[in-house]
């Protein structure tokens, strides 16, 4: 029987982490060299984990599916990274950052974890700066900041619209430094297909070499998953096309509980769907809402071009509904508000599924040059994709699947329910509750990897110093590899008539409709039924050309999509079980007369963590109660 122990330390909130890390067991430098750690993923959380652990002297193996560790999708984060520096003297503090995240997450995150994330945020900025990350600066030479949604201070550090790229490349350089020193070995073009357990502990992984198709075994004293989110389950999302959930899902099947799977952030400002073959939705950074104003026409069936519609015929609906935060309301609120206007018939564009994001006032006030300095690359990106110049005409935007707050359940040490298996960054569930605030993802990923995991993993490994390096010629590795081989053979053998992508597209549509921005009991039940049918069809009709022992991109996709059916079902199940609306999880049945989310703290102030019970079997729900000692649970209002 799995027991959820969050292992939150005793003591006052502000002292928990400091006291706790001062008392964690250590591993001596000589012993660290004898301990192997596997890190899967080279995004911000994986690369920072691997480089920090390498610096400590552990023997680290790090894996990615791309050809280089510099390409992981953290690279695409645009707007910024939060820290409680209070450089602007605007009243910011660790507590305020903590509070904003707890409230932004609609009171569905653990206080202690969130406070710690806020606490280490300042270290992250100092470290990046010391590594030569070229953050934006003001004329005095100090770091500049800007505002993001859901907060009333300016704490977001940035490097134009490429903050993720600059943070990731900084971390990539620190990882390279450890690779050059021989502390870390990098394996590129590898998919992790299974987790290997020995005596109930995570002891290794099975990977597939994507160029040769060869299955490989790797052993270690501990395994760290830094494998990102599962937003590509929607097919159309802001994620990279290779982003997938297979490694995390393999761990889930081996006993790691999956927490809050239905908490998926739909980002409000993506470029809308333009054609049927669309493979990807491109994000326009939330930072644009600092200066852009969101509106739709006041009349349905408005035929005039946006620039011809006078002020009095425009409905700045965010400013109207949420005067305190205006265009900078959190993402879940902004997304639903856009959907509400479009569903009511006020949407713009050919499909009626978009709203305007207008920079006219900002350009008139600040001048085109200032706006270009702040958002130049985003404006160019928009023009390339749509052919429309946003300096002259408002952007059209619509919400898109973006970030998964849900993920592998972890305790305060970032360890999953499998001993020795850790999860960092987006792949865990821990810091964002039911909705993530902008610019706190880069912050969490780097905090986890640089400043939290290196402490907590040592505590576990201090008990492992007597475990010698072990061979992969054991029945456990044999068995895991055999299972993977059979799974690959099974998907190759179908030899049907439909492409993997066609299934993925249909799968995404089902989930977007049933488990997207708005959910209902009826819709979710129907969604699960449709997923079951589609999965059956997949295993009869999918066509994977080529062979399994060569570079085969279709096979890679097929294995990922096969897992997405199960992930999608778990999302729907969680959304069904949670009879309330909170953050990104909005159940039609639970809303106020004004259409705002209605939480049910009496029954649902808990983390829902699911235990795998077999495919198409109802998963076992475990609840971790959320205790709020430092903030008062109240209605989340941005009005």
């Amino acid at each position, binding site marked *: 029987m799995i027991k959820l122990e969050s292992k939150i330390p005793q003591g006052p909130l502000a002292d928990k982490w400091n006291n706790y890390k001062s008392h964690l067991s250590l591993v001596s430098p000589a012993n660290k060299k004898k301990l192997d750690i596997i890190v899967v993923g080279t995004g911000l959380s994986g690369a920072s984990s691997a480089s920090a652990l390498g*610096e400590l002297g552990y023997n680290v193996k790090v894996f990615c599916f*791309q*050809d*280089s560790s510099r*390409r*992981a*999708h953290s690279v*695409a984060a645009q707007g910024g990274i939060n820290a409680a*520096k209070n*450089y602007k003297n605007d009243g910011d503090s660790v507590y305020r950052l903590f509070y904003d995240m707890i409230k932004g997450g609609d009171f569905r995150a653990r206080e202690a974890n969130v406070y710690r994330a806020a606490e280490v945020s300042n*270290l992250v*900025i*100092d470290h990046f*700066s*010391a*590594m*030569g990350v*070229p953050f934006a*600066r003001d004329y005095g*030479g*100090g*770091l500049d900041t800007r505002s993001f949604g859901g907060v009333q201070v300016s704490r977001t550090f940035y*490097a*134009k619209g*490429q903050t*993720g*790229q*600059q943070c990731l*490349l900084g971390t*990539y*350089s*620190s990882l*390279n430094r450890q*690779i*050059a020193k021989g502390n870390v070995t990098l394996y590129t073009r590898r998919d992790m297909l299974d987790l290997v357990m020995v005596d109930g502990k995570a002891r290794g992984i099975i990977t597939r070499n994507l*160029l040769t198709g060869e299955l490989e075994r790797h052993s270690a004293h501990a395994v760290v998953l830094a494998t990102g989110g599962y937003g590509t389950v929607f097919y159309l999302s802001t994620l*990279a*096309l290779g982003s997938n959930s297979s490694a995390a899902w393999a761990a889930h099947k081996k006993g790691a509980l999956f927490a809050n799977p239905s908490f998926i952030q739909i980002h409000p400002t993506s470029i809308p769907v333009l*054609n049927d*073959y*669309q*493979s990807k939705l491109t994000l326009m950074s939330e930072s644009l809402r600092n200066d852009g104003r969101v509106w739709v026409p006041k009349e349905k069936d408005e035929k005039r071009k946006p620039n011809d519609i006078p002020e009095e015929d425009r409905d700045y609906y965010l400013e109207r509904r949420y005067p305190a935060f205006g265009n900078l309301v959190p993402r879940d609120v902004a997304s639903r508000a856009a959907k509400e206007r479009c569903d009511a018939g006020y949407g713009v564009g050919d499909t009626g599924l978009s709203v305007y994001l207008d920079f006219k006032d900002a350009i008139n006030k600040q001048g085109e040059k200032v706006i270009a300095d702040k958002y130049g690359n985003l404006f160019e*990106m928009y023009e*390339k*994709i749509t*052919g429309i110049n946003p300096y002259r005409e408002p952007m059209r935007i619509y919400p898109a699947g973006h970030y998964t707050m849900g993920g592998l359940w972890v305790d305060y040490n970032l360890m999953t329910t499998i001993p020795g298996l850790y999860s960092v960054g987006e792949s865990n569930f821990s810091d964002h509750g039911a909705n993530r605030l902008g610019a706190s993802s880069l912050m969490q990923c780097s905090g986890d990897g*640089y*400043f939290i995991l*290196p402490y907590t993993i040592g505590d576990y490994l201090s008990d492992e110093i007597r475990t010698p390096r072990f061979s992969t010629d054991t029945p456990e590795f044999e068995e895991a590899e055999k299972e993977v081989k059979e799974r690959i053979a099974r998907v190759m053998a179908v030899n049907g*008539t*439909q*492409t993997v*992508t*066609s299934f993925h597209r249909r799968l995404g549509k089902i989930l977007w409709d049933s488990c997207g921005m708005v959910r209902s009991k009826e819709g979710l039940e129907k969604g699960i039924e449709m997923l079951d049918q589609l999965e059956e069809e997949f295993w009869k009709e999918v*066509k994977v*050309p080529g062979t399994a022992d*060569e*570079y085969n*991109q*279709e096979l890679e996709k097929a294995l990922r999509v096969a897992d997405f059916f199960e992930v999608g079902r778990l999302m729907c199940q969680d959304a069904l079980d949670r009879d309330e609306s909170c953050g990104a999880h909005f159940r039609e049945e639970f809303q106020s007369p004004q259409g705002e989310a209605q939480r049910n703290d009496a029954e649902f102030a808990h983390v829902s963590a699911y235990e795998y019970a077999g495919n198409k079997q109802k998963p076992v729900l475990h609840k971790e109660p959320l205790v709020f000692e430092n903030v008062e649970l109240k209605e989340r209002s941005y009005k």
Partner: protein
Amino acid sequence: MNFKLKIWRQKNAATKGKFEDYTLNDVSPEMSFLQMLDYFNDKLITEGGQPVHFEHDCREGICGSCGLYINGRPHGPLRNTTTCELHMREFEDGSTIVIEPWRSRAFPIIKDLVVDRSSFEEVMLAGGFVNINTGGALDANTTPINKKISDRAFDAAVCIGCGACVAACKNSSAALFVSAKVSQFAMLPQGKTEAAERVEKMVAKMDDMGFGFCSNTYACEFDCPKGISVEFIAQMNREFFSAKVCSHKK
């Protein structure tokens, strides 16, 4: 829109490759170039063929995975644009589109349009970092950096490592790629301390990996999807020269 496609097909590194001709009809001008290839691959697969392998990931011009040589130019006809950001409306209906992998000795072909760019990684491993450990960094604002210098370092730091500069260069020189990293760190106080050792090591590794010399044709700048300036090559040369003349080893 309808197109004739001329695509480089090669089963693997060991087999010889060749151009294959295809026709593709009913392409929407709204499609991105890679969506057009997805659509083409879907057709190939359903007709029993083997899909064309190409690399891609973020599809928003930032990961640097995609890189195709389109009608004789890296990333196609538009300036400051990656392959994934290119759209079919840029092509003339009925025209022939030639699609090749990067052509350079330092980037061997793996399959179809996929090449091995690990030589870039080797150059980075030689010194593309600041030697600083995690923890112990001073407050970020204790080191003020002139805004102009910081912005300039950022202009160099936006390199996505796609390899277009090498593909564009008749000598297969990696000078633009290497100079971007050398310059970024040389300009910032955090990277200055090790600037001399860094440039020597990275340039030596660049030569080892089989990249050619720079002969200042500026083709790299012209085809760089991120608009990185050849001025950074000049800066790298200055850094290199001063490292050699005022050798830190003395």
